[in-house]
């Protein structure tokens, strides 16, 4: 329903990555609806929401991040997305971090985390430039394995390097994407 219906995504029963040649290897992420991803996030012991500059495309997307933040999930604001949180005056559990530097920490099980209480077991990527996010998800998939860090994407792109991801969503389906995000927020139980 949400895929680029004319782009060939479902012809072989496989989703195509948003950057069509970004096929990493044998292990690729599963496409899941918002309720399933929300439930998966709910199973995390210590999740982190990692957001990027595309969050600033519309207030709605920023508000979704804030709603997730208000559920007690801390936010790492990468790129220049922090600007939006400052303007919205929501900075309580939001920390600026360069995404490269953050992922460098996430891959280390001994990292103390943003709160000093230890590394995370689950990361949610949201609002990040596609190819940058894809590479950081690749690092997590390949090197944050002991203990396993689970990573999902709730962007409008299919991310094969995430364990779970939405499918590619056309700009024509903006309303549906927003609806998916709303459902996701509702389904996160903390």
């Amino acid at each position, binding site marked *: 329903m949400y895929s*680029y219906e*004319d*782009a*060939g995504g479902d012809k072989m029963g496989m989703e*195509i*990555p*948003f*950057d*069509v040649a970004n096929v*990493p*290897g*044998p*292990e690729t992420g599963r496409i899941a609806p918002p309720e399933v991803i929300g439930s998966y996030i709910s199973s995390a012991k210590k999740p982190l929401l990692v957001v*990027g*500059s595309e969050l600033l495309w519309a207030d709605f997307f920023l508000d979704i991040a804030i709603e997730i933040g208000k559920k007690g999930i801390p936010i790492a604001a*990468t*790129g*220049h997305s*922090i*600007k939006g949180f*400052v*303007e919205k005056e929501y900075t309580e559990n939001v*920390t*600026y*971090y*360069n*995404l*490269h*530097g953050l*992922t*460098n*920490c996430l*891959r*280390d099980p001994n*990292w*103390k985390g943003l709160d000093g209480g230890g590394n995370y077991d689950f990361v949610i990527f949201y609002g*990040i*430039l*596609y*190819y*940058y996010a894809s*590479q*950081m998800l*690749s*690092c997590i*998939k*390949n*090197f944050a*394995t002991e203990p396993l860090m689970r990573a999902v994407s709730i962007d409008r792109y299919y991310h094969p390097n995430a364990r779970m991801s939405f499918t*590619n969503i*056309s*700009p*024509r389906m903006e309303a549906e994407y927003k609806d998916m995000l709303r459902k996701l927020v509702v389904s996160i139980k903390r």
Partner: protein
Amino acid sequence: MEEIKKGGIFTISELQNVRINIGEIIEEEEEWEPMGPHPMPRIATLRDWDFKLLNRYKPFYAPLCDMCCLCTYGKCDLTGNKKGACGIRMDAQQGRIVLLACLIGCSAHCAHGRHLLHDMIKKFGRDVPIDFGPEVNIEAPLTRLVCGIKPKTIGDYDKVLSYVEEQIVQLADALHTGQEGSHLDFESKALHMGMLDSLSKEAADIIQIACYHMPTSYEGGGPDVPMVDVGMGTIDTTKPVVLVIGHNVPPAADIGAYLVENGLDDKVELGGICCTSIDTTRVYSKAKLVSALGRQLRVLRAGIADVVVIDEQCIRADVLELCQHTQSPIIATNDKAMHGLVDRTDDDPDKIVNDLVSGRVPGVAILEPDQVGEVSVRTALEVDKKRKGLSFILSDDEFKRYVNDCIQCGSCTLACPNGLRIGEANKSAAAGNIKPLADLFDICVGCGRCEQVCKKHIPIVDVVTKAAYPEVKEEKGKMRVGRGPVWDSEIREVGAPLVLGTIPGIIAPIGCGNYPNGTKEVQLIVKEFAERNYIVTLTGCMAIDCALWKDEEGKTVYEQHHGRFDAGGVLNIGSCVSNAHIHGAAIKVAGIFAGRPLRGNYEEIADYIVSRVGACGVAWGAMSQKAASIATGFNRLGVPAVVGPHGVKYRRAFMSRPDRKEDWTLIDATDGSKVYVEPGPQDLLVACETVEEALPMMAKLCIRPSDTDRGRSIKLTHYIDLSLKYLNIYPPDWHLFVRAASDLPIAMRNELLKKLEDEQGWKIDWKMKKIVEGPIRAYNPSFNPTNLERLIRRKK
């Protein structure tokens, strides 16, 4: 005698069966500096230095592909850091791929240098002096530093390039299955390759400067180099046009010489794309820079060239097909890029011109640069007549038809490296608003992948060009001609302010045009730092792209700022090979300002630079393997680099962990004591998602442990101010760089002291306005930082 000079075999006729073999003749060398510890280092010579860097800046890997496909055991699935059939793990495999990228990049620069040397010796002889004028005594900092050689003539580069070539082969061997298995050793080898890359670039540029009398410190050089025209609107298409593409200037130089000798310099346009165009303007004053790499496809499609002359590197692989479409004959001038064309070197020029003009052949290869000028110009003069009236810009009707044909399927977006929403822009254009399409022109990286997947066969690149054409045809900027080496006298002036920090840093925009959001951001980077009194030294595509944009007064950044290597300067150093002079400037700071010996002394100088010279490269559109080896060469010398978001596809970064105290302990060379220091520079290679994030990051990466309090306060001012301006926050880590109240910007001192007290829990003596407790270390103006125990002067 000539034979004996060069070495060789000869017999003495009176003596039977006696043959004397004379090898290399070594002339008595001028005593210029005692030889340092590491002349012509081999693979493992500087491994200890590399491991010091790699311990602090641990390699970070983000695989682009989870498999290895290099041998018949494979494909092997390495996901999750598994081992392949040969035993290699994912991390080592990534190091191996990085080494391969650096190998390709370094080979391009070294082979370019060798090609130049070969051609120049043939044309001018081995004894062309390396004389860059009265202001440049350290003519070849990298050659002195790495090889221990002070080159006097271009012939001296034979030995330098032979050294690089031998090392390249040894390093390539390490890539074979069943060789290296440690990711750290792969990275040490990549760093070695990066250093060789920088040496090769210096060799190539010095050879061409010496032979073609490119600007140096003689009259009209350095800060006084003239401006040249930049942009797609600078070419007068009513005249015959020769377009050169690539990196190797001799064929283009021959075209310029032919035009002048035959009085055609006002009748024929000579324009260029990429580094050949930069170097052509260093030898022929009427040459024009049509574009950087990112617009190659669009310039060729626009059909402005009557003849296209290609040499080497960064040429589109489909250049022949593109030129056939616009009926522009092509001349390949380098055996590394012959594109299937017949080699017509030494053939009768009349016959070649006739074949090209008649269209009997789409192009030819001419591998002697001195034969290219006549053939290309004569061909352009004739082809221009035949091509008059042809237009390759879409008509209004064609444009309308194509934008209406678009079904917004999204296939082009999935194929686009930047994920551009082309369908939406088409839809808007079909409804009468072409602005969204026109705006894509600058953001598009010009690859053409979109067209191949378009179900309606829309020539998307042409549609976008058409939308932007009213602006594109008027695009005319100004850029300084590449000036080559930074002068020793300039280093004498700025050495102290740079090391003390009162000039906050050198920002070096380098490399290709794979930008995330167009060329405008290049201008923003240059403008922002030049206005803050950093020294901005540009090379390659970024040097061209920043000249496309003007301020309200109609001036480019080159026209707004002086060209001296001094605070607020905007310097075009030259083409990609010229960026060796940026290494050179940092090396000269150590040699001239600090009096450190350079000869064969790489480790000590890199140690000096990483702790004291606030320089930061930025490759905002890094794309090629050359960019990988360039950045890695900067890194080994202790210079950090920021890359744009596409740079994460290089798979590897070098980032530190400021929270790991054990990684940030330096030695005070004065007494050997260990000092825990602030993280400066925090990273050696890091990507930023947006330019807003990159600007404060670059300012941060100019911070060094040696900064004086005044220098640190200036650097902190810019770091904090850029962060407030573009991120709307105080940087979360600014306090790490504060050693004393005097490090704080004066205008903000009270406010910042309060923040330190409230947010970090530091103890402040408000009467004295002093920090009592909190910083990582106290400010010590006599701190003499080093990573090398051998440099300790007197142990405690």
